[in-house]
């Protein structure tokens, strides 16, 4: 119960700071829109191929935007030694990590919910054919990005070139989750109900989320306290 209260306090603090400044949110959203527009020059947006590439395109945009949000998660606590204060408070490192992960998750989901309709308009795609399953895919894969991204944001907080290092470190690790998300999103935007074989990708996403959430919770104390 105490743990849940601490998690809610940290998540609330991060979200309040983000709602008041909107720094990370605005930057990540603008970045996502720019990439969405740039893709229209890389490929012919009217072609049938676009339908087959939709999942890949969307998740590249989300992963890039995610890195911007995640990059700020722990480094924002370094001025005035706020991170030391947080660590000295009764909040345990796992609660701190989970709170920050939830805040990042909410921000990233908000960005995705704005990008998806924009993607539909710009590329003339009807993405609402399988809304429930598409939402499930978005939630599961976004959790995968934020859970790994947040723990790595803690890992790289004192690094030289940390803005550069975070994407280099997290993208290769996220490949199984991104792969599953791309496959499912392409299928669901095309409107086809998933075949029995496609549930495999949902299982992969769920397994990935559980394994890395547990691993992050187990190792965060070593990361933050030593």
């Amino acid at each position, binding site marked *: 119960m105490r743990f849940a209260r601490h998690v809610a306090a940290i998540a609330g603090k991060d979200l309040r700071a983000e709602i008041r400044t909107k720094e990370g949110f605005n930057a990540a959203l603008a970045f996502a829109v720019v990439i969405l527009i740039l893709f229209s020059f890389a490929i012919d947006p009217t072609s049938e191929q676009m339908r087959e590439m939709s999942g890949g395109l969307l998740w590249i945009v989300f992963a890039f935007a995610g890195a911007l949000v995640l990059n700020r998660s722990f480094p924002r606590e370094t001025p005035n030694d706020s991170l030391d204060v947080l660590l000295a408070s009764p909040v345990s490192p796992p609660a701190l990590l989970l709170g920050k992960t939830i805040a990042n998750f909410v921000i990233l989901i908000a960005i995705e919910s704005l990008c998806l309709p924009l993607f539909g308009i710009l590329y003339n795609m009807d993405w609402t054919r399988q809304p429930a399953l598409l939402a499930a895919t978005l939630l599961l894969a976004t959790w995968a990005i934020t859970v*790994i991204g947040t*723990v790595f944001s803690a*890992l*790289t907080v*004192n*690094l*030289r*070139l*940390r803005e550069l*290092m975070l994407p*280099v*470190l997290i993208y*290769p*690790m996220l*490949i*199984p989750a991104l*792969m*599953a998300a791309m*496959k499912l999103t392409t299928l669901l935007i095309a409107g086809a109900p998933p075949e029995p074989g496609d549930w*495999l990708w949902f299982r*992969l996403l769920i*397994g*990935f989320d559980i*394994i*890395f959430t547990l*691993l992050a919770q187990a*190792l965060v104390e*070593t*990361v933050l306290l*030593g």
Partner: protein
Amino acid sequence: MPRPILSSALAAAGGLWLIRNLHVVTLQLPDEAAQGAVYRNLFFHVPAWFTCFTAFAFAGLAGIAYIVRKRMVFDTLAVACVEAGVAFTLIGLATGSIWARIIWGIWWTWDARLTWALITCLVYFGYLMLRESLDDPTSRARISAVFSTFAFVSVAITYKSIEWWRTQHPGPVLDFRTGGGQIDKAMQSALYHNWGALMLIAAALVLIRMRQEDSRRELEALRRYVHAQ
């Protein structure tokens, strides 16, 4: 045995074993029925991959051991194993590419195992870059140990998931994977011999790299001491 002598002895034994194996592979074994002479590449390609798996597995275990015991020797072992592993990954990729150029007609294809190998390589390059950007030895050891644990789990999941995604690479042929009958006994024995030789060379490299890492840490400590004076 002191480490310098041990590493030299291992390297010499590995080198001699490799020369013996080269003699067997090039002069004693016949050409393969379907592939011709180029199949001999297999005697380096497959053992290089086995060696790199072993090195990464040791690196993962050393990372966990550091988190539990907090002893610098595990960090030294982890970085030495990762560097040796990356070297053998590159050998595996290069020999694989040469074989693919001749048999498939292309240097590279986005097949399951090739993609996995490349991702593994990228993940461990990340590990080496991460170490370079940390100055304090204790936090370097701690953070890279956590990273290597994540890396090991992620690489294991990627291995399975890419297999679901795409596959073109030849399937397993060795007896312990297939139950026997897929590969000639003499060829299989030459392959295992080469694995042994490469493992000895890898062990020598790991020992040399561990010594370098110890010296590096000592130098860093001395530098800090001088600055503090």
